[in-house]
C-alpha cells in the first residue's frame, strides 16, 4: 500500500503536468481539479501511513544509496507533503476561478503549476544532494515561468531578476555538492552523516556546507540577498504569489535546514551560526520596516515574506552546540513557523488578490471605506495577519513561544529581543492595512463582490493557520516519529 502511495505521489503531479499541457485552460482546470483530489488523497494517505508505521527510505528504481537515489520518507517530510497538498490545492482551486480563461497563454499555467508541485515533493522527500539540485531547478524554472506568464515588462524584469538569483543560488549549491562528492564519494546525505559519525572531520569540507547554505539562503531570500523577492512575489498573479511565498521559498530553506541539522555540528562553526541568525534578525527588522512603507497591497505582503523568512534562519544559532532539548524546541518552533507562515501567507496573497479584484486598485489606500461592503476577504486577510503577528492562538504564536523557550534555554537572550521586536514590527504593517480598511470614506461607492469560491479559499487557509496553534502538539508529534533506518519496507 505504502509503495503505491509513494508511486502515486511521485507520478500524479508529473502526469498531470503532461495531461494539462495538452489541453486548453478550461479543460486543464477541470483535469487539475480531479488531479488535486487525487494528490490530496495520496498525500493524506501517505501521512496517515507514516504516522502509523513510522518513516522509511524509499529507493527509486529499486536501487539503494549510494548507487541509486533514496527518498527519505519521515514524519517531517510527509507533513510538508501534506502542507503542500493543502496550499497548492487551495491555490489551484483559486487560480481556476481567478485566472482569465480566455487568454490563450494561460493554458500553460496548469503544466507549470503541476511541475512546481512535483518539484516541491521531490525536495521534501529528497535524500540525495544532487537530486535535490534537480528538484530545486524544477521549482525555480516553473516558478519563473509562472511569474513571467503573459506578463508585461515589469513582470518580465521581476522574473529575470528572480531567475538570475535562483540560478546563482543553485550554482553555489551545486559547487558545494561537488566538493562534498569529492570529499566523501557519495551524494547521499545519510551516507555522509553516517561516515562523519565515526570519523574525524576531514579538512576543507566546511566550505562545501558554507557554499550550499549560502546558495540556498539566496534562493530563500535571506537578507541581504532578498532584493529579488518582493518584485517577483508582488507582481505575479495572486495565486502564483501565494504559491511562491508559501511554498517555493520554503523548499530551499528546508534543504538548508536539513543540511545544517545533519552536518552543522561537524562542519559548521559558532560564528557562522550566529552570523546567519544575525542576518535573519536584520531581515525581520528591515523587511518589516519596508513592508510598512509600501503603498501597494501585495508589496506589503511580499516584504512581510522577507521579514518572516528571517525568523526561519534563527534555526541556525539555536541548534548549534546547545542542549538536545533546546535543539528540539528550536526545530519544532521553526517547523511550526514554516507551516503557519505558509498557510497564512497563502491566505493573505489570495485575499489580497480578491481585494484588488473588488476595489479595482492594487493600492493600500484603495481599501478606504470598503468595510461597509462587508468584504469577506478583508476578514480573511485580517485573520492571516494575526498569525503573521504571531499572536495567539495562531501557529505563529506557538512557533514564537517555542523559539522564545529555545533562546532562553540556550542563554542566547538576544534572539528573545529579536522575536519580540519582530512581532511588534509585523503588527505595525498588519495594523496599517486594518487601519486603512476602517477609515470611513463617502467616496467609495462601488465594490465588486468576487465569486464565493474565491472568498472561501483564503478564509479556510487563514483559519487553518489560526487554529494550528491549538493543535500544534499533535502536529509536532507526527514529526517526532521513530524513523526506520534500515532499508525499504
Amino acid at each position, binding site marked *: 500500500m505504502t509503495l503505491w502511495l509513494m508511486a502515486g505521489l511521485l507520478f500524479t503531479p508529473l502526469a498531470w503536468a*503532461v495531461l494539462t499541457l495538452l489541453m486548453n485552460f478550461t479543460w486543464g482546470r477541470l483535469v487539475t481539479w480531479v488531479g488535486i483530489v487525487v494528490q490530496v488523497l495520496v498525500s493524506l494517505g501517505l501521512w496517515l501511513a507514516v504516522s502509523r508505521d513510522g518513516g522509511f527510505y524509499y529507493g527509486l528504481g529499486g536501487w539503494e544509496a549510494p*548507487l541509486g537515489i533514496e527518498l527519505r520518507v519521515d514524519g517531517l517530510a510527509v507533513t510538508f507533503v501534506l502542507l503542500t497538498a493543502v496550499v497548492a490545492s487551495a491555490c489551484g482551486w483559486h487560480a481556476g476561478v481567478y485566472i482569465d480563461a480566455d487568454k490563450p497563454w494561460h493554458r500553460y499555467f496548469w503544466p507549470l503549476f503541476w511541475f512546481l508541485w512535483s518539484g516541491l515533493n521531490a525536495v521534501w522527500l529528497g535524500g540525495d544532494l544532487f537530486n535535490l539540485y*534537480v528538484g530545486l531547478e524544477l521549482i525555480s524554472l516553473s516558478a519563473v515561468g509562472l511569474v513571467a506568464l503573459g506578463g508585461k515588462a515589469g513582470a518580465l524584469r521581476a522574473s529575470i531578476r528572480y531567475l538570475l538569483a535562483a540560478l546563482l543560488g543553485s550554482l553555489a549549491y551545486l559547487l558545494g555538492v561537488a566538493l562534498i562528492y569529492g570529499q566523501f564519494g557519495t551524494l547521499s546525505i545519510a551516507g555522509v552523516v553516517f561516515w562523519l559519525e565515526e570519523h574525524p572531520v576531514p579538512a576543507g569540507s566546511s566550505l562545501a556546507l558554507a557554499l550550499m547554505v549560502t546558495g540556498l539562503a539566496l534562493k530563500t531570500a535571506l537578507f541581504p540577498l532578498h532584493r529579488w523577492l518582493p518584485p517577483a512575489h508582488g507582481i505575479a498573479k495572486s495565486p502564483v504569489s501565494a504559491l511562491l511565498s508559501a511554498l517555493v521559498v520554503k523548499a530551499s530553506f528546508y534543504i538548508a535546514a536539513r543540511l545544517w541539522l545533519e552536518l552543522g555540528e561537524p562542519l559548521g562553526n559558532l560564528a557562522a551560526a550566529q552570523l546567519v541568525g544575525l542576518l535573519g534578525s536584520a531581515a525581520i527588522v528591515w523587511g518589516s520596516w519596508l513592508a510598512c512603507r509600501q503603498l501597494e497591497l501585495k508589496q506589503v505582503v511580499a516584504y512581510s515574506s522577507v521579514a518572516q523568512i528571517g525568523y526561519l534562519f534563527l534555526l541556525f544559532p539555536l541548534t548549534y552546540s546547545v542542549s538536545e532539548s533546546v535543539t528540539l524546541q528550536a526545530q519544532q518552533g521553526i517547523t511550526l513557523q514554516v507551516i503557519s507562515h505558509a498557510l497564512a501567507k497563502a491566505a493573505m496573497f489570495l485575499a489580497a488578490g480578491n481585494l484588488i479584484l473588488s476595489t479595482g486598485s492594487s493600492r493600500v489606500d484603495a481599501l478606504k471605506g470598503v468595510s461597509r461592503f462587508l468584504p469577506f476577504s478583508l476578514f480573511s486577510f485580517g485573520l492571516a495577519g494575526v498569525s503573521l503577528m504571531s499572536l495567539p492562538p495562531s501557529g505563529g504564536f506557538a512557533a514564537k513561544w517555542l523559539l522564545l523557550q529555545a533562546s532562553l534555554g540556550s542563554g542566547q537572550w538576544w534572539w528573545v529581543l529579536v522575536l519580540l521586536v519582530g512581532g511588534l514590527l509585523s503588527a505595525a504593517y498588519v495594523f496599517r492595512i486594518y487601519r486603512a480598511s476602517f477609515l470611513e470614506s463617502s467616496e467609495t461607492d462601488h465594490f465588486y463582490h468576487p465569486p464565493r469560491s474565491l472568498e472561501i479559499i483564503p478564509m479556510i487557509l487563514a483559519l487553518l493557520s489560526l487554529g494550528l496553534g491549538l493543535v500544534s502538539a499533535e502536529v509536532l508529534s507526527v514529526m517526532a516519529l521513530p524513523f526506520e533506518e534500515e532499508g525499504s519496507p
Partner: protein
Amino acid sequence: MMRALQTLVMALACLAFTGVLATSIWTISGNPTPVNLTQLLTENMGRSGVEHPVTAVLLNFRSYDTLLEIGVLVIAGIAGISMAKTASLEDPAMRTSDSLLYALQRWFVPLMLVLAGYLLWAGADRPGGAFQAGAVLAATGVLMRLGGSPMEFLRPGLMLRLGLALGFTVFLLVAVASAIGGDAFLAYPPGMTKALIVVIETVLTLSIAMVLLALFVSAPVNDAEDPEEGAPS
C-alpha cells in the same frame, strides 16, 4: 569613481572566493574518499541492462534525476512557447536566402541526421546517448530553420505540445508501470530493461530536439499581454 571602487571590491571578493575555493579543492584532493562508488557501480553494471556506465547511471541507477531533468527541459519549453507568437511563426527577418547556407544545408542535414542516429545507438556501450543525439537533431532543425524551411509543426499547437511531452510521457509511463506491479517507482521489469531503455532513449532524443528547437523558434514574441492585477485594463 564609485563604479571603479565597486569594481575593485567585487574583483577582490571574487578573487578571494577563487582562492578559498581552490584551497579547499586542494585540501580535499589530498583526502581519500571513504565511499568508492565506482567499484559499486562496476559490481552492479550487470544488472543495469546497458554496457556503458554513464548511460547506466543516467537511465537506471539515477533515472529519477533524468526524469526530473527532462521535466526541467519541458518547463523551459513551455515557458518559451507561452511567449511565442501564436498567429504565425513566419518571421521574415529570420529567413536568409544565402546560397552558401542553402548548399550547406543540403549537405549537412542528412549527415547530421545520421550522426544523431549514431549517437543514440552508441549510447549503449560508448559515449553518446539521448542528449547528445537530441542536441545534434536540434542543431539540424536550427540549420533548416535558418535556411528558410517553414517547419509548420513548430507552431504552438497540439502537435508541438505532443512532441514536447512525448519523451517525458513515455519515460513516466515506464516509471509507473512497474510501480503498479508492486515494485518501486522507476524500476524496470526484469528482462525488459535494455529494450525499455532503448525506447526511452529514442523518444527522449526526439523530445529533447523538439524542446530545444521550440525554444529557438519561439524567440519572436507576441505583443499581447495581461494587464497587471489592479491596473485598469
